[in-house]
């Protein structure tokens, strides 16, 4: 199937989830799914007043496009639209919106989940939480796979000598 996707963006513009959803869908599709990530008012039990998203913007755009393309392969359609926001966000602001559609529901659930999980693993984005007491801190993140080692991992557990 196509590796194109209908829409992919990283940047400071406000995200309208309804607009993202409106980019997917087709007469062939019986299922559409929209995931919305929102800044919430707590983190690990600590009250949060806002969040700053930093990104390695040029790379994040490429990486998000790769993730969306991979999701399209799983989905079996090119109907994937995703936006990730950067900058200062308040409680309730949308940080990410992912919309997909497909003939049957299983592929939509799988692909939407894939996009958000890969974003968390690989997208070069960082967030700084602003706490109610005026302090702030970087959110503990995830080391992306396929980097940070001196040698590549062995493809097989055993190698014949």
């Amino acid at each position, binding site marked *: 199937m196509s590796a194109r996707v209908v829409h992919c963006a990283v940047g400071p513009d406000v995200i309208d989830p309804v607009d993202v959803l409106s980019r997917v869908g087709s007469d062939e599709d019986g299922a559409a799914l929209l995931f919305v990530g929102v800044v919430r008012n707590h983190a690990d039990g600590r009250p949060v007043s806002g969040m700053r998203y930093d990104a390695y913007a040029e790379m994040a755009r490429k990486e998000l496009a790769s993730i969306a393309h991979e999701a399209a392969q799983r989905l079996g359609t090119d109907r994937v639209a995703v936006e990730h926001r950067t900058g200062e966000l308040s409680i309730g602001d949308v940080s990410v919106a992912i919309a997909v559609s497909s003939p049957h529901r299983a592929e939509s659930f799988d692909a939407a989940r894939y996009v958000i999980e890969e*974003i968390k693993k690989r997208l*070069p984005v960082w967030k700084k939480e602003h706490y109610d007491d005026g302090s702030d801190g970087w959110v503990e993140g995830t080391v992306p796979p396929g980097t940070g080692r001196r040698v590549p991992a062995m493809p097989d557990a055993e190698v014949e000598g």
Partner: protein
Amino acid sequence: MTLSVNTLFFASYRDLVGASTLEVELSEGATVGDLVDELRRRGAPFDALPEEPAVAVNQTYALLDEPLGPGDEVAFIPPVAGG
């Protein structure tokens, strides 16, 4: 012969290093790992960078034994937290 690369620091690494970019001269044939070692040898604050950080070369994740070329953009990527 030397080669010059453009090093980028993001988020907590930028806070640590106190700069977002740094141009570094390396010997020809140097790898990403050699760049890390060179920076860490400079002492504070660079010695607080991890020995095996996540890195991207020209905006693609790379292993530390990847060889560098003149003008490469090498980003130090702290653990990511998008979404």
